[in-house]
């Protein structure tokens, strides 16, 4: 069986610095991390590979060339093939165009199931998995917190979805796109010590527009259907405030405030 994991490397948003004078994100020396939900999806694929025979796992990512070392590390934890979709023409693509590009690669690739994350920490639009599903005309399910591994077959799989009010168990016919949440607690293994320097270059494939054949006006900023017209920092209305400390006076003032307002 062939599993494809769509993954995204994102800037470590918690530690991102913002240049408020020039209104831009400081991108130099930003460390990339594998988007946590995507990492869970890949961890699930590797778990299935451990449990069952003849499972082949391919990782696909669309990104600039600087993610190559990160993708090589995925090959060192027994991913069978890593495909990097990259082209200068694709820079600035919105989610619509990104979905079209990745889907064109997938259309000519065999798979039984595609695994992705549900949320991404940077954009958090969750558009791409659903949009790819629509182009490939396959089913797609988000917010998956559990996959019943033993049920996984070429025909179908049973999954559990966290749908706000309840947990729902679904039988999903394959091929399909399953979008996993990190709450599933599937964890990627570490690279084994002996594999740290493993040469994996023969398993890394670079796909550019030479293979995918888009016209210039279909991709990148030009092909995108949405455009950021401006960015700004929101000014919040400042309130007249008290500044206190955690001492007797401070606590007393807070307490009186709560009492005056009827909270205690």
């Amino acid at each position, binding site marked *: 069986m062939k599993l494809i994991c769509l993954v995204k490397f994102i800037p470590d948003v918690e530690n*991102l610095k*913002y240049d408020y004078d020039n209104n831009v*994100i400081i991108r130099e020396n930003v460390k990339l991390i594998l988007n*946590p939900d995507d990492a869970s999806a890949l961890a699930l694929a590797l778990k299935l590979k451990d449990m069952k025979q003849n499972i082949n796992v391919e990782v696909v990512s669309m990104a600039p060339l600087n993610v190559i070392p990160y993708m090589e590390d995925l090959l060192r934890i027994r991913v069978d093939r890593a495909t990097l979709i990259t082209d200068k023409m694709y820079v600035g693509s*919105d989610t*619509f165009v990104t*979905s079209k590009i990745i889907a064109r690669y997938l259309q000519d690739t065999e798979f039984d199931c595609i695994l992705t994350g549900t949320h991404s*920490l*940077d954009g*958090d*639009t*969750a*558009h*791409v998995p*659903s*949009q790819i*599903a*629509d*182009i490939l005309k396959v*089913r*797609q399910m*988000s*917010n998956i917190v559990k996959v019943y591994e033993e049920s996984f077959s070429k025909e179908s799989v*049973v999954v559990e979805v966290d*749908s*706000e009010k309840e*947990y*729902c*168990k*679904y*039988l*999903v*016919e394959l091929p399909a796109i399953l979008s996993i949440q990190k709450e599933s607690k599937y964890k990627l293994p570490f690279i084994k010590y002996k594999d740290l320097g493993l040469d994996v270059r023969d398993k890394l494939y670079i796909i550019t527009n030479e293979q995918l054949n888009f016209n210039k006006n279909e991709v990148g900023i030009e092909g*995108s*259907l*949405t*455009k950021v*017209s*401006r*960015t700004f920092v*929101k000014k*919040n*209305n400042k*309130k007249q*405030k008290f*500044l*206190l*400390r*955690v001492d007797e006076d*401070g*606590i*007393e*003032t*807070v*307490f009186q*405030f*709560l*009492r005056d*307002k009827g*909270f205690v």
Partner: protein
Amino acid sequence: MQKVLIYLDAENFEDSVGLLAAADEIYKDCKYESFGLCINYFDDSVLDKFDCLIRVNDERINYYDIFNITNCFEDLYRKFLFDVILIPATQTGRMLAPRIAMRLQTGLVADVTGINNLEGKIEMIRPAFNGRILAAIVNQNCSPVMMSIRPNTFTYCNNSAKKAKIISYEPYHINPCGIKLLESKEKEKARDIRESKILVSGGGGVAENFHHLYLLADELGGMVSASRRVVDQGIASRSIQVGQSGKIVSPKLYIALGIYGSQQHIEGLKNVENIISVNINKDAPICSLSDIVVEGDAIEFIDKLIKRIKKYNNTKIKK
């Protein structure tokens, strides 16, 4: 007249109706025609709110059958040529909106928090980069305008007295769903943080002692909520997350403990009457929104405040 279609998600019907507020925001004082799409669910309460209600009654379509619901949207769009399509950012809505946009070959903006209408060009505002900045997004040569909107983002006041025209629609191409619901179990009935008048909310600064917050929440008869940072660390459940990617809350009292107050968090605070923030950094963005800022350790604050409240309650009993 411009036409707006709103998806009335059966799972979150009332919140979906609230999207009318977003349509009002787009058209301000201009007239527009509002359409609501109801699939296998209907509630009389919407009759006076929309101009038209499109009803689909087809038991072959389940609420989780995104593929066939997308087909319905596609057919209806071809028929009515809506100018704007609004989808509630519920779980179903978040799977549905991207598919519809792809099908209609139009742009989509997720989790819109503000709308400007610049002489007919609709500008959609959403927080970006973890809420550090706001981005204004426009469509480029495509229509309809499509956006997903989280419940409660725009405040809806119902003062319309419309009489909706009912349009029955029978879908003609239904594909096999390929997904079957085997069972569902209700989550333990935890109260929704959106319903609590008092929220004791914790961020990165109290992550290590997060359980302490429950002591204060119990004392005040409120609930505990959390910032995204704490949720991402796995310390608190996503169901109690406040912010753009969590829930939008409007308590009377919000006590922000060790919360920095990134823009994406502040997007989750709507019409909060009183904010008290406790932080070792008195210049954290949350502090500029607060009525009271306490500079110092939030856990120490909890303990001392609980003691003070207990003392007050004891004297009250004695009296």
